[in-house]
């Protein structure tokens, strides 16, 4: 239906200006159980149309929460007026972007659009909750959240590039709290799921039971944990954490808009920023011969998506661009301009950003550490445009004389990415991908991130 609508509207594009017209629908479904009480039970759908018009390098944008020829006319006029306003008030003179090649990309196959009924989200959460409530009565609290979200887009540009795409993902989040002997409460969480609609990812609650048991056991270890010893340390970061590192600490600094905004990577292109063992890529839709966690085939400027090599053997070799920044830096756009909702303009965003695997075995990496930490899971991460990063660590263990020791209480690690990456001296041969979170940068955006385990030096918080 969206496809037909855009076809009808192409004749309305303003002559002499570059125009993008996008129709989009976002859906979300959510059920929340806290201690067995259903505290959240909601579904939302937003759809609308937007236009972006470029005139001499300045953009006008408009959106209307409606999908109709009238709405299209309204946004095309408003976006054109806004582009003219910008050109009149702060025009940069004649400026043209290289035209997009004419192409059509239709990839709405990221899972069937099955959109299961709300009952399924609740029943699945209930089944898991019943198992936990019956088996683990000593927990202080339990929270179970089932969620799904999707975005479906149809795009047409005045250059003739067009297409339709759909990204869908679904998860079950599980959070346990338990009291240590002194009464202090500790928390552990995990996420199940990934790309695709809920009924594709969650068919049988019993399939999760072994992982749920494992989560409980790890929480019990944490309740008998120790504080990390604050200061610099040798550690082995899990693949999940190296994925966060790829996204937060390196990925953001090499988004070209942040480079232009003063990120540390402005001075680092072509320079060694990491150990020769480290390579990093922002994958578009396919990684290592399989679909990436959240495949992007076409971006919201109409550029076909392809991989962007960021670090090759320790040398920074690329930025992620939109059409504008690609022209500025003399690079090729590769499909990183993404918008979250119909009312959002495309921004430079990551897709599936990952450190590439090496050759070491995780067990050898742990065995090689005399006194350090194995850091497994994080609940959040932030990074600066200086490359200084921070990850909250919710699961970690001491390594003493090459063996995993006591669990750690919650802590934080930090470092400066382009310094810390130079300390990487072992890279494991196995990848871990995660895709449950949202990246925040004016707009939220679902992204994938991944990596192998890394042995490196970081600062750790603690006592």
């Amino acid at each position, binding site marked *: 239906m969206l496809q037909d609508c855009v076809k009808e509207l192409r004749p309305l594009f303003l002559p002499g200006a570059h125009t993008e017209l996008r129709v989009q629908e976002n859906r979300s479904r959510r059920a929340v159980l806290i201690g067995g009480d259903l505290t959240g039970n909601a579904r939302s759908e937003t759809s609308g149309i937007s236009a972006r018009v470029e005139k001499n390098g300045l953009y006008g944008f408009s959106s209307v929460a409606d999908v109709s020829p009238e709405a299209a006319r309204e946004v095309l006029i408003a976006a054109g007026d*806004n582009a003219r306003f910008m050109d009149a008030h702060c025009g940069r003179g004649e400026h043209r972007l290289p035209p997009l090649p004419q192409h059509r990309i239709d990839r709405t196959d990221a899972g069937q659009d099955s959109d299961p009924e709300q009952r399924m989200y609740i029943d699945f959460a209930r089944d898991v909750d019943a198992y936990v409530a019956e088996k683990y009565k000593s927990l202080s609290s339990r929270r179970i959240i089932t969620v799904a979200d999707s975005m479906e887009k149809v795009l047409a540009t005045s250059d003739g590039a067009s297409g339709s795409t759909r990204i869908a993902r679904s998860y079950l989040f599980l959070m346990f709290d338990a009291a240590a002997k002194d009464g202090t409460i500790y928390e552990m969480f995990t996420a199940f799921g990934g790309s695709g609609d809920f009924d594709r990812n969650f068919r049988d609650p019993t399939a999760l039971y072994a992982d749920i048991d494992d989560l409980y056991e790890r929480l019990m270890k944490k309740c008998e944990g120790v504080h990390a010893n604050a200061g610099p340390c040798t550690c082995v970061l899990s693949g999940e954490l190296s994925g966060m590192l790829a996204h937060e600490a390196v990925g953001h600094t090499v988004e070209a808009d942040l480079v232009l905004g003063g990120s540390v990577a402005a001075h680092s292109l072509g320079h060694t920023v990491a150990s020769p063992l480290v390579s990093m890529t922002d994958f578009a839709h396919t990684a290592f011969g399989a679909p990436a966690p959240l495949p992007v085939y076409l971006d919201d400027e109409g550029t076909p998506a392809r991989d962007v090599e960021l670090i090759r053997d320790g040398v920074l070799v690329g930025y992620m661009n939109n059409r504008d920044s690609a022209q500025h830096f003399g690079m090729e756009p590769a499909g990183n301009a993404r918008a979250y909702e119909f009312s959002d303009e495309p921004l430079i965003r990551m897709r599936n950003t990952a450190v590439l695997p090496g050759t070491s075995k995780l067990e050898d990496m742990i065995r090689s550490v005399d006194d350090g930490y194995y850091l497994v899971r994080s609940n959040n991460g932030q990074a600066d445009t200086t490359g*200084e990063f921070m990850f909250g660590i919710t699961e970690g263990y001491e390594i003493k004389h090459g063996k995993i020791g006591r669990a750690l209480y919650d802590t934080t690690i930090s470092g400066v990415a382009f310094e810390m990456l130079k300390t990487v001296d072992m890279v494991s041969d196995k990848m871990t991908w995660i895709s449950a979170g949202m990246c925040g940068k004016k707009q939220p955006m679902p992204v994938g991130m991944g990596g192998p385990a890394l042995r490196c030096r970081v600062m750790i918080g603690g006592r």
Partner: protein
Amino acid sequence: MEELRKTAADVLARLKEAGADRAVCRIYRSETQEFNVDGGTFSLFRTLFDKGIIMTAYRDGRKGSVSINRFDTKALDEAVANCISVMTSGEPDPAWEIAPLTENATFREGALVCDTELLFSRTKELLDTIAARHPSVVVEQMIASHTKSRSVFVNTNGVEYQSERGGYDLDLTYSAHDGEATSSFFGSTLLTADLDAPFYERGSVRRDLEDVERQIHPRAISGKFEGTVLLPPSCFSEFLWSAISNYVSDTVVLDGTGLWCRKLGERVTHEGLTVSLRPYDKAVALGERVTDDGFIAQDYNMIENGVLQVLPLSLYVANKTGGLRAPNSSGNLVVAPGTENLADLIAGISHGIVVGRFSGGSPGANGDFSGVAKNSFLIEDGKITDAVSETMISGNMQTLLYDLHGLSRETECDGTSVLPWAAFGSVTVSGK
């Protein structure tokens, strides 16, 4: 407004006809004008025409919500059917209630018409001022916008609130540079109902820009020490919200893990601390008027002289736990100022750190925190000295709140909150 009232009433009627015994509907239309600056130059002018409906249906203690952004008959038919289906899927819980009818009200405030030319002028003026007075600062992004909205809240108890409001937002992100040396990025935000004064002179914008210029060449400290942390108002606000969320928010009260859940009427912080939620404070722009649950908002003191007076609970969690709902659900945090000048407060700190921004993991349930002190300075012998880098701070939020060393007489307001500077002890500062 009549279109919104009519549609809202229609939604309630449809939900009841479809089987709901109670129902709530929020409906709005909004228009936003927004200028964007990227990498120091204007890039984009956006105009957004938005609308939405959030409908909630109840029957026999079951609740279901659906939100859509279309008002046509077909969309409403589908949404109502969907909402009833979601509700039916739910579990019965007598704690779900809707607001009773007390008095209906109409609110009309703020800048209801966007002065687009003046908004552009004020935005350009700030950009020009930064270039002239802070030449080392690179503006990563600036978003200056005006949003006006019309909304209606109705429920089947006869409650009806109409609201028409408009205001200007500024969101500025920047860093300072000297060759390849760079500060951490920092952000300043504002909400205002008028454009009478330059953005540069409002809130903490000028001070923030001055501070970031002094952070280009930070010093990495070595070793660790226990000292005093001085929090500027914006960082103090984030710290308090983190403590409130961790110790006494809906979720932790419901699951019983919040440390302040059962401390109503007891001391939970130093006696010098009075924390309020004041949407009607004169300094606050466009404060909350109707709560999330459909009550007219009222100001209240959450913590008074260190004693927990009110738990910030929703109606559902209040019913669930036998408590009282909070008089508002706003983020309009107001902390009573202290009696010392900021300069005297700093002079009294022998060894500590000013933390402009905290980048840390979510604190554990017990309030233990650790993270990186960003945009921060050392305090040595009563004076602010060097900016610091790669410095971590750690401690426990509860311990800090008891170890208040002082609050400044001076306050800052970003249009949403009003806070002084706050100095706390018991913080471990560690460097390389």
